[in-house]
């Protein structure tokens, strides 16, 4: 067991290293390959007249002239032991894990991430609970009552659900619920510890919109999985043994039908924690996804890099948790 976990951990670390290298390459190598000089890059960060001294200052500050691997090494170093940054006369120590400083606001990227994370986490976790419960429940019931009115209605709605782009349902729901019917105020984020009621009120619409899409997908997946499992021989055996139907379904059917769902859930939640970009854009919530978009449009590369790294980390952790859960539940996995 311990060996299995260690092996998965090593794979996770390797994955993270690959993701960081690729991301770093995209941000720092691609512009150069595309023919942009360091002067071009530096000029982006000068607000006022571009002078040689100004350019040199920016280049030195951002380390634009250093070779790629040196910069990657410094970045990795920052994560593990921290870095010192020079602003004018003052030297600021950025303690590990340091993801660098925003080119635009001079804020440590780590602070920005920590600042934005609660917003994204609130959206993702709330929606995840909703969609997991609703999606799986609907999928199971549909599979068991296959062909019934409920099954057909639920699957039609689910098909519509996976066919509706989320930014459209989001906009329509704000328009309908907040503007036309005025059932809710326009969503604006509140800190949970500030006022839990307002926090929940602000998140209802994003949760429902996001969960609607995923619940539809999960309901379809669960139904398919259940149908397949319930046709397997061992289910027939269980029934033949005279086990009560309830136990057949929950102990045997559901258990194996849910296995792939949990894998996908791990992946989905990891990706969403790293920035529900579309939800955040649609509802104008300042979460990690918005931070990423901002970083990209304002050429604030350390910020964009930080968000991507964080997302990679979340995905990997979510996968790791899923893997370990499997190993706990099913001893065969450890040997695989």
């Amino acid at each position, binding site marked *: 067991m311990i060996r299995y976990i260690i092996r998965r951990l090593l794979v996770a670390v390797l994955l993270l290293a690959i993701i960081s290298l690729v991301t770093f390459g995209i941000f720092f190598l691609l512009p150069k390959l595309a023919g942009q000089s360091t002067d071009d890059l530096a000029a982006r960060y000068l607000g006022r007249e571009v002078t040689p001294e100004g350019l040199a200052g920016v280049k030195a500050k951002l380390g634009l002239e250093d070779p790629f691997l040196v910069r990657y090494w410094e970045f990795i170093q920052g994560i593990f032991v921290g870095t010192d940054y020079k602003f004018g006369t*003052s030297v600021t120590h950025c303690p590990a894990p340091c993801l660098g400083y925003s080119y635009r606001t001079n804020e440590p990227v780590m602070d920005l991430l920590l600042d934005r994370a609660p917003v994204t986490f609130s959206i993702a976790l709330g929606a995840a609970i909703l969609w997991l419960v609703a999606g799986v429940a609907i999928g199971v019931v549909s599979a068991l009552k296959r062909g019934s009115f409920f099954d057909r209605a639920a699957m039609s709605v689910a098909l519509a659900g996976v066919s509706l782009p989320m930014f459209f349902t989001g906009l329509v729901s704000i328009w309908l619920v907040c503007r036309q019917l005025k059932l809710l105020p326009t969503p604006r984020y509140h800190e949970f510890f500030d006022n839990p009621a307002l926090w929940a009120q602000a998140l209802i619409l994003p949760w429902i919109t996001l969960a609607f899409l995923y619940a539809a997908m999960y309901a379809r997946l669960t139904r398919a999985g259940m149908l397949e499992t319930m046709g397997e021989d061992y289910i027939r055996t269980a029934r033949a043994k005279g086990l009560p139907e309830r136990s057949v379904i929950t102990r045997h059917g559901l258990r194996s039908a849910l296995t792939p769902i949990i894998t996908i859930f791990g992946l989905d939640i990891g990706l969403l924690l790293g920035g529900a970009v579309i939800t955040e854009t649609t509802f104008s919530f300042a979460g990690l996804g918005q931070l990423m978009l901002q970083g990209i449009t304002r050429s604030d590369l350390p910020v964009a890099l930080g968000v991507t790294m964080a997302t990679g980390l979340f995905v990997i952790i979510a996968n790791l948790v899923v893997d370990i859960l499997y190993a706990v539940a099913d001893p065969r996995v450890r040997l695989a």
Partner: protein
Amino acid sequence: MRRTTRRGIAVLATGVSAALVLAACGGGDDEGGGGSATFNQGNTSIVNPSDSKGGTLRMLRTGDFDSTDPGNMYYATAWNFSRLYARSLLTFKSVGGQGNLEITPDLASGLGQPSADLKTWTYKLRPGVKFSDGTPVTSKDVKYAIARSNYSPEVMEKGPVYFRQYLSNPNKYKGPYKDPNLDNFKGVETPDDQTVVFKLSQPFAEFDYLATIPQTAPVPQAADAGAKGGVNYAKGVVSTGPYKLDSYEPGKSIKLSKNPNWDASDTNRKQLLDNIEVQLGVAPDEVDNRQMDGSAEIDVAGNGVNAAARSKLLSDPELKKNADNPNSGFLWYTAISRQVEPFTNKDCRIAVQYAVDKTGYQNAYGGTTGGDIASTVMPPSLKAHQKFDLYPNNNGKGDPVKAKEHLAKCGKPNGFTTNISYRTERPKEKAAAESIKASLEKVGIKVNIKNYPEDGYTGGVVGDPKFVQKNQLGLMIYGWAADFPSGFGFLQQITDPGALKGTGSSNISHIDLPDIAKKFQDVVQLKDEAERNKVYQEIDKAVMEDASIIPMLYAKNLYYRNPKMTNVFINYGYSGMIDYANLGLAK
């Protein structure tokens, strides 16, 4: 100007419209709350004048300030906001209407005293002014503020550098972060604690305008050192205004509270509020809605409301009476690059002047309340403005016949292909670019639209002649407002051949006519304002004859004037936005 919301100085729309507004609201001093308010009342008078004290003013903003450091800011909204906690040598008068364009002493006790050759300007500080920590302000603090903000590009990269441009610097002073000994900085002298003397390398008749820039607000050298100094000073600005900066979290919030050591003889500001809270990073339509639903008072960005709120404000008379639609002093224009083929040929430029549909441009900027159709470089809000129209084209709708005539003259009877650039973050500029594309295609000119990030648009894109040529940017969407409200402040940066430099020039049309350069050199030696204005008009005409700038709109903004706020007026010294330094809340 390099950034739209930056400085903009506009005298009130002169003449007819001003008179109409005055007539409509029956003068400026009427008392009372929102009940008796009228549309555009804030344009000409102080609305809800009151000395009622207390309360917390809640400000909102979609983006963030470029900085809270008075030495490192360039947007008009930041300059306006900085006056809450920083006093510059001079400022604009706190009165309603165009009177607030008048320069008035602030930290200084009087206007600048020029030498006969206009190369030495002397200011005396008002006695008894203290920092928020109780230490007295001296002339050294002003000198230090100028030194750090203008000579340290490696730290302070956001503000203008007029002082570096005009002050003499015989020993190439490198800024206080590299050279903390201020004696090496010869551009400013401090013969005693109350006197600041500016030594210019060239005559400059309009130096008093520069003294209104927040960079002249004093900074104690001791507070700008170590980990708290440099870029981090923005979070710990030492206040001289009625409020002090308690905290600044970039992208999130700014908090101000009363400054106990404020010099109450300051007539340019009021200290009525207990606290001011700015919430940053709020979605655009949320900013609009919250001003109207009472959960906040004012949008501090100062660009006015967006499309949805505009429609709501203008179609409901109860809301409309609490709205102002002043001139912002901005000119929205499209620059034609004189370096890019076939625009090296003047007739090709004139063809575009005739072909463009300015009404489409106007729709893009919000219709008639977004701006008036323009035909000159200088907007009517400047005293130097003179109306003329060298390329009349059906009231802005475009004249394809004339355009084709000139296309034939420039040897491209069947049109040609060119590119137009706009700033990614600006949907209005995008719509404007699309409108130009559509109107030029009617005469056979094919246009490809290109977008670039707002940051660095002037620095590395349209302001870089090499970039413009490499990417063949024949047309460039741009906006401009003066850093200070004179013809010089408006025209020099965008039309003076002398303003051309390697990169980062705002003369993006690449106007290099020696005749215009000569006029700029001469005009700053004229002591008489009226004479200077005549020269500015000549320059305006010369630029239009050259056809390298297509004036599109004299911009206007639509503001919601929250009836809860007191002492509300449009300050034309700051892009025609609501003055922040005098606001209070009604009981």
